[in-house]
Each structure stands twice: as structure tokens, then as C-alpha cells.
């Protein structure tokens, strides 16, 4: 390991033209090649796309400020989600992850941008494409991957899998689309009732946007002015059905009707952040709910059993990758404004790759949950209740 790092360090020094060893710091397994911070621009302001508005006089700002630290942080977050999802893809193809797996790559800016705009004490709930949010809400990569492989070190103790990951202030991870939206409104009601100035971000997709429960929730949230941000992650396809074929109106930000709405470029992390901040301020000011449509794109198919090219062309996917990739966009901004160096970003990439690799190693080697935990938490009861197994004589204990 050390010799490999020394080689990398020397190579990087050659690239930057510095004397080998002069400005390299080795800390254990990490090599940091540093230029003095005054070389970098500490902060810059960027033009971002104007959001389309519905029921609003004014919208989020069209210029966003980004500090170097923030830029690196968003880059790190998005790159981690990207690498984690690609690793999940790999593990799935090796049959180490089984069952259903819905990947989030391409949509990283949504998770990163929203998290940047809200507080850790705010709440978030989404549907099944949840790995990205699980990470941004604070769950370590190894617990996410271990959950995907169904091991006891997983965030849901290995019993939830891809669709059922939870964390404090993150309510999953829900399999039935649309069903999480009334839940989100309920969480928002609790925030309002407790007067803690928290909000709930409730996400759903373009497919789920046609579910009846969503509209019931809109009504309740508007009636009671709940501090709820409804976010429609419009990735243009509900499984294999394009939005034009599923929705009478594809202006998802207007579907709240009497609820104001924003249409946001979901591939630009700064755009998402500014819009989410605007929406959060709206809710916290007691103005009631707001709808945000994030226009985004997923590179993978709906799930691992969907190649993703029978209902859209490879050219389309390629075009989004080359023109609108959220990570590339941020990287160009950072490099173009001298806010970071290419080596620095590459260094971050290497670190992330290693972290993901270690997490995958953990996820593959961790033991499965023991069989006597199979029925735990079916009921909450003391003493534990017995639950019927696969036949009437198999009595299994539900400890909770």
C-alpha cells in the first residue's frame, strides 16, 4: 500500500511540477498533494437556470453562490452516490445483491442539492429509489451496501433490502408508490404541531404523480398549511412509460393546482439547492406547502432487471451523460473558476473509490442476520408474541 501511494504521490508531483516530497503529506493511507489555499478562488457566483413558477410572484434567485468548501463537499457527495450505485450494479450482476435494486445514478444532484438546502433536523421521505437519499441523510456507505447484500450490518439489519432503508429523520425507502406522500404530510403536521420549525421533504416520481393519494394529500396539506415540500423527481419515465403517455399534464409542478410550484433543473446541484432553500423558507414562513418538480434523468433502467433501452434510445442516454451530467457540470464549474484543481478532484475520486471498495468488502463478508431474528418486530409486545410461520405448527417468536 505505501509503495503504491508513494508512486501515486510522485506521479502527481511530476504533474504539478513540484519537487517530490516537498509538499506531500502522508497520513496513514491518504496522500494529500496540496497547493497553498491562496491559489484557489474561495467563492464564486454562478448563473443558474430560472425556475418556472406556478402560483408564485417571485422564485428562487438566478445566481447562486458557491464556496470552495461547498463545491468540494457537493462533489464528494455526488461522486460517492455515483460510485456506490455503480458498485451496487456490479454486485448485483455478481448475484451478491439479489431481489430488487433501483439505482439512482444520474439523479445525484437532486439528493445533494436538497440536503444542502435543508437541516439535518428536517425530515425526508421518498419512494424506492432511495440509496442516494439514504447516504445524504447520514447513513455510511458500508451500511447501505450491507443492507443491499442482506447482512446484519445493514442499516435495516439486513431485513429491508434496497427499498427499505431508514435513518433518523429519513423515513425510507417505500415500495408502494404514492403511499409515502400522505405519510410525508403527516410528518409535516407533526412538525407544525410541535412548533419546531422543521419541514418535511416528500418525494415521489413522475409515475406516482398520477396516484390518487397524492391529490388527497395536496388537499390536506394546503387546507392545513402544512410545512411540506412536495418534490416530484421527474426522470421522464415511469418504469418504461414516458411521461407523455402517462400524464394528461406533464407540468408536474402545476399539478398541485392551488399549491404554488417550481420547475427546477434537477441536473444542476446549485439550481436544486437554491430552489429547495426557497421552498424551505416558504414552508418555514408558515405559507403552507409547495411543489417542486426536479427535471432529472436516470442512466440505469428502472431496476436491475430493466436494460433501460427498450423505451428510450442509447443516444438519448449518451446525450444526457455528455451534456447534463451533474457531476461533470459541477467539476467544470470548479475547475473553470479555479476553485479546485484537477488533481484534487482526482484525489477525491480515488478516496471515494477506496471507501466504496472497502464498504463492498464489508458488505460481502458480513454475516447474514441470524434466523431467529426472522420474525422480530412484527408486533411490539412484551412478552414477545408468537407469530405463525409458513405452516400452523411453526410458531416463531416476534421479539420487539
Amino acid at each position, binding site marked *: 500500500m505505501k509503495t503504491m501511494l508513494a508512486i501515486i504521490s510522485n506521479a502527481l508531483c511530476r504533474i504539478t511540477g513540484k519537487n517530490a516530497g516537498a509538499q506531500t503529506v502522508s497520513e496513514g493511507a491518504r496522500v494529500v498533494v496540496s497547493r497553498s489555499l491562496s491559489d484557489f478562488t474561495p467563492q464564486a457566483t454562478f448563473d443558474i437556470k430560472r425556475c418556472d413558477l406556478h402560483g408564485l410572484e417571485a422564485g428562487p434567485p438566478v445566481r447562486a453562490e458557491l464556496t470552495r468548501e461547498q463545491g468540494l463537499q457537493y462533489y464528494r457527495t455526488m461522486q460517492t452516490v455515483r460510485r456506490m450505485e455503480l458498485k451496487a450494479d456490479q454486485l448485483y450482476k455478481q448475484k451478491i445483491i439479489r431481489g430488487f435494486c433501483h439505482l439512482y445514478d444520474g439523479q445525484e444532484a437532486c439528493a445533494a442539492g436538497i440536503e444542502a438546502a435543508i437541516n439535518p433536523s428536517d425530515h425526508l421521505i421518498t419512494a424506492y429509489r432511495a440509496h442516494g437519499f439514504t447516504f445524504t441523510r447520514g447513513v455510511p456507505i458500508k451500511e447501505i451496501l450491507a443492507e443491499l447484500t442482506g447482512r446484519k450490518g445493514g442499516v435495516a439489519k439486513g431485513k429491508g433490502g434496497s*427499498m427499505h432503508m431508514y435513518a433518523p429523520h429519513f423515513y425510507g425507502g417505500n415500495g408502494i408508490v*404514492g403511499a409515502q406522500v400522505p405519510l410525508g404530510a403527516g410528518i409535516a403536521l407533526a412538525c407544525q404541531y410541535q412548533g419546531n420549525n422543521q419541514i418535511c421533504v416528500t418525494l415521489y416520481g413522475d409515475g406516482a404523480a398520477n396516484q390518487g393519494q397524492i391529490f388527497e394529500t395536496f388537499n390536506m396539506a394546503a387546507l392545513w398549511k402544512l410545512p411540506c415540500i412536495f418534490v416530484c423527481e421527474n426522470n421522464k419515465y415511469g418504469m418504461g412509460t414516458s411521461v407523455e*403517455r402517462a400524464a394528461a399534464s406533464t407540468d408536474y409542478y402545476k399539478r398541485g393546482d392551488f399549491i404554488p410550484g417550481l420547475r427546477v433543473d434537477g441536473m444542476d446541484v446549485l439550481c436544486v439547492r437554491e430552489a429547495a432553500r426557497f421552498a424551505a423558507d416558504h414552508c418555514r414562513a408558515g405559507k403552507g406547502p409547495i411543489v417542486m418538480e426536479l427535471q432529472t434523468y436516470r442512466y440505469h433502467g428502472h431496476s436491475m432487471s430493466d436494460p433501460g433501452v427498450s423505451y428510450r434510445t442509447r443516444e438519448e442516454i449518451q446525450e444526457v451523460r455528455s451534456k447534463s451530467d451533474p457531476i461533470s457540470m459541477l467539476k467544470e464549474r470548479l475547475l473553470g473558476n479555479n476553485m479546485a484543481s484537477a488533481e484534487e478532484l482526482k484525489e477525491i475520486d480515488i478516496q471515494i473509490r477506496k471507501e466504496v471498495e472497502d464498504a463492498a468488502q464489508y458488505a460481502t463478508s458480513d454475516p447474514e442476520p441470524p434466523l431467529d431474528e426472522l420474525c422480530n418486530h412484527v408486533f411490539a409486545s412484551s412478552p414477545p408474541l408468537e407469530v405463525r410461520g*409458513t*405452516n400452523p405448527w411453526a410458531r416463531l417468536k416476534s421479539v420487539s
Partner: protein
Amino acid sequence: MAAAARVFIRGAHATLSVPGAGKQSSARSALLKLSPGCSSRLKTQQRHAAHFTFQPEPVTTQYGPTQKMNLFQSITSALDNTLASDPTAVIFGEDVAFGGVFRCTVGLRDKYGKDRVFNTPLCEQGIVGFGIGAAVAGATAIAEIQFADYIFPAFDQIVNEAAKYRYRSGNLFDCGNLTIRAPWGCVGHGSLYHSQSPEAFFAHCPGIKIVIPRGPLEAKGLLLSCIADNNPCLFFEPKILYRAAVEQVPVDSYTIPLSQAEVLQEGSDVTLVAWGTQIHVLKEVANMAQEKLGVSCEVIDLRTILPWDTETICKMCRMVGYKLRPG
């Protein structure tokens, strides 16, 4: 495995231990086997999944020429026959136009047109509600719910609207032309929301019929019966059998009567009643019980869960002996 079996044993204490505990005792542990192909994995990764072997029906010529079909093909064949013979028949649901996520409707849109085979948006309550309306107006409405796990938003429509329509209108209106199809039952990796067997939730609702086939030959006949039946029907298709179950199925229309259980194997000691995938498990169990315990099992496929064939079941149970020889 779908818990779709009842074992009637009189006067015996049969205790089956928790599966996978590693005990080796005749019939019990043989029900649970590690699936093949996992021996190469790490010791920590064991699959405690029950297995079954699909047992095909013998070839029959009573309904005309047959063709080799798996379960989803037999469904397509039934729907094809229906659309051909009934000009009012329409098929709708999520993703049915391109053939469906389980390929049950492949080719039908091209053959019969997009006004007869069409997609709905993602809204189960809407699909069933819309189906009830179409049926009331005279169309033979065949609605697909993508997975039985998703049928619950439509529960109100099925139980409160469809089931009670004829009764509450004094026979002025009815939605008997409605058939709702859904993939059903566990598949091994489906977890919470792609594995459910919800027939029990509907089984106490007068006004609807619930049918679950055990294989392609049964499926086509039973589905055509459901479509022809003058009551709204729920037809659950065991998804694990879609590709695995292959039989010789007649190409023409034929019906298998509803509310009639089928005695697959006669026996004198124990009656085993099941439906769907579990039939194949129980056939194996019956053989094992005979070989290892000397117990003669009767195997009955209930087929129609509601209204169920009380006569056959009661008659068979009365004939069954009381003793269970210790093994």
C-alpha cells in the same frame, strides 16, 4: 412458499419445528432444502427457501389440438381467444400495451388495435373503478393489476363497488363483465411488495369470485370461465410459474367450471387442500408421506377460493380415516 395449504389431520399431534434448524427428521426437513447452486457460496450465505417441482398435467385431447405453452403464454392464448370472439372485450392495465411486465399480453395490441389493448397510468384504484364502469356499460373489461401486492388501493372499489353492484341496484345494473387479473404469490426474491397472496383479504366478500390456477392448462380454462362468468372475478396467476410451468394447452377456447375443486390424488388417511403453486409442493409431500410414513394422502386443488366447493371438501374429509400411524 405461499401459505396456501390446509392439512386436516384428525387425532394427531403433528409438530413441525422451525425450518432450517438443521434437524434431520424425515418429512419435516425435507420440506426445506438449500437451493441448488449455493454450495459454492460462503458458509454464511445459506438460502433457507423451500423448493418445488412443477408437475405438469397429462396431455388431453378433449378440447382439441394442443400446443406447448407456459403459463404466461396460456394467459395470452385465453385473452387472444376472448378478443377474437367478443368484440366488446378490452384489456387495460399498467404496461399491457407492449406485452406486460410478464409478457401476458404480447402481440395483442398489434393484432386487435390500440383501442382494445391499452395502458393506464399508475393508479390501481382508477384502473378498477374504470373497469367497473366499463363493465357496467356492457364491455367485457379485463383489467390487469401489475402485482397482487398493489391491489390494495383498489380494495374499496372491489369490495364496496364491484361486489355489491348487482345487489344494491336490485339487479338493474351489474359489473359481471369485469375480470381483474394479477400476478400472485412468492417468487423467492420478491420480498414485501412483489410476493403477496392477498386472496384471504377478499375471501369473505360476497359478490366477487376468486380463482387461482395451478398451471397453464388450468389457467386458460379457468380464466375463460372467469371472463364468461356473470360476476366480477379476481384471477390470481402464480408468478413463479409464468415461465417454469410448461404444459400442452389447447389452442381453442375451453372452460373449466368455477367453484369446483379437483381431487388430484385419492387417499385414505389425510386430506391436503391447496391452490396455486402449493399444489406442486403438496403432491411431493403426499409422495414422501407415502414412502416414508406409509400415510395415504388425498390432494385436492381448490381452484376457486370464493365461492369454494364445500361439498367436495366436506365429502372428502368425511371419508378420511382418523388414525395416523407413528413413523
